[in-house]
């Protein structure tokens, strides 16, 4: 597989000095999208019962945290920290043998476990769908949730597997040569502005 399924990760392949890039979501856009997704989650779940948000490293996790905070803001009975976790999928990827070795990230699941929960997987960009496939495998090894949903900040198309998102911040038609970069302060540093950028490929 040549196209990484989470293109927002790691350094650009061609660090050309001149890259045509265009901001598609600003910090305010991102915040609005997350607010909307939070409402959608509550609506789909008919409330906050049994909800568990699992972010996929690296940028899915801070997004899951932000969503949890938004849920807690609407429903005071929710403890944001208790419904967020991180699900590392490194070991479950189907392209391990074709990439330089990746260091695995921590998987953190709240003490309540995942059995019979409604899991919302959270990631920044949905592309080929392979990361989500790996996440579903990883989940199975942790237990048996009641349902699994998917929330993504950006869906850029080009699916290679029969996977779709339940909640999408923004649908973004792209060419496969373009790169979508998501910048979040929690990962990229406090001085970085939150934004989503499309970089033209060569």
């Amino acid at each position, binding site marked *: 597989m040549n196209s990484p399924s989470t293109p927002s990760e790691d350094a650009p392949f061609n660090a050309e000095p001149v890259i045509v890039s265009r901001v598609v979501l600003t910090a305010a856009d991102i915040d609005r999208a997350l607010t909307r997704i939070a409402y959608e989650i509550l609506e789909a779940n008919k409330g906050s019962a049994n909800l568990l948000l699992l972010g996929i490293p690296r940028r899915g996790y801070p997004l899951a945290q932000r969503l949890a905070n938004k849920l807690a803001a609407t429903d005071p009975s929710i403890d944001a920290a208790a419904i967020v976790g991180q699900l*590392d999928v*490194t*070991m*479950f990827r189907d392209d*391990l*043998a*074709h*990439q*330089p*070795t*990746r*260091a*695995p*990230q*921590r*998987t953190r699941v709240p003490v309540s476990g995942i059995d019979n929960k409604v899991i919302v997987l959270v990631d920044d960009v949905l592309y080929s769908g392979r990361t989500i496939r790996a996440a579903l*495998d990883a989940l*199975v*090894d*942790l*237990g048996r949730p009641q349902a699994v949903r998917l929330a993504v900040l950006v869906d850029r198309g080009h699916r290679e597997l029969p996977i779709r998102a339940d909640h999408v911040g923004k649908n973004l038609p792209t060419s496969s040569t373009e790169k979508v970069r998501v910048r979040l302060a929690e990962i990229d540093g406090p001085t970085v502005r939150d934004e989503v950028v499309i970089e033209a490929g060569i």
Partner: protein
Amino acid sequence: MRHLLDTEDLSRDHAVQILDTAQEMSAVGEREVKKLPALRGRTVVNLFFEDSTRTRISFEAAAKRLSADVINFTAKGSSVSKGESLKDTAQTLEAMSADAVVIRHWASGAPARLANSGWIDAAVINAGDGTHAHPTQALLDAFTMRSHWSKLSGIPSVGADLKGMRIIIAGDVLHSRVARSNVWLLRTLGAHVTLVAPPTLLPVGVEHWPCKVSYDLDATLEAGVDAIMMLRVQAERMKASFFPSTREYARRWGFDDARLATLDRLNLKDTIIMHPGPMNRGLEISSAAADSVRSTVLAQVRNGVSVRMAVLYLLLAGEIRDPQPNSKQNPTAPATAMPAKDNS
């Protein structure tokens, strides 16, 4: 990293990466499904020229938790004991498409020979060679120490090293691959190591090692210590006059009940006692010390699987190496000059 032959050339960053990865791996052992698919379809051969059930099953458990296929190849009862050479054995494994060879050998340097000879393309992991090195043991020891050290300091262990930790390694240093690998690794991780042994059981040349050396266990304890690692001493060494009697050895260099009490007297309440196993109770370590709350012996065994998972994962999960185009078609081609030890 292509092979794991020794800890001598392991950089701090590589060492910490292995320990951090091991930490993630350790969580798998606590789950209901103790398995990851990362090495599905990969073949790991345990090539053991020397008995060591403990190390072999640890590697076997590690490989299986990562979903690799495991082949155990023991020298005893195989063609190896009938005089088959290391070269032929290596080429047999190559023909069987082994992705990694975990080798335990009585001869120092046998893993390096396997890795550098051009006989085989697999990753080579040293599971103990002669009196040379035992890198995964040193890594699991360091992992055990790091967990303890971070608990004490309250600093998260991920990314951390052992800076400032005071460690005693006591016993038969001369014949110990565990001691050697630990000295290099603990130095790299910033710990202060003191070797304590009878002069007969220290190698000539130890003065060049990055550690202190003492003949006096009690004085070294008095100076303060955070971890004490007792090395196995074989009673047969007595016959070669390395020491006069097991009793005298235990009295001067064993970790006995009196020295256990000394730790309490010195108010060293957080000092741990380590042993790579198997233990000679009553010789280098007393039962009371081995079974005390300070003992990390079982934690070391547990951590062994996590560390070996990390090593297998980091060596094998990456890019599949391109097959060497000439090696199969042209078996008569002269072996290329010995490649330099590749630690990249």
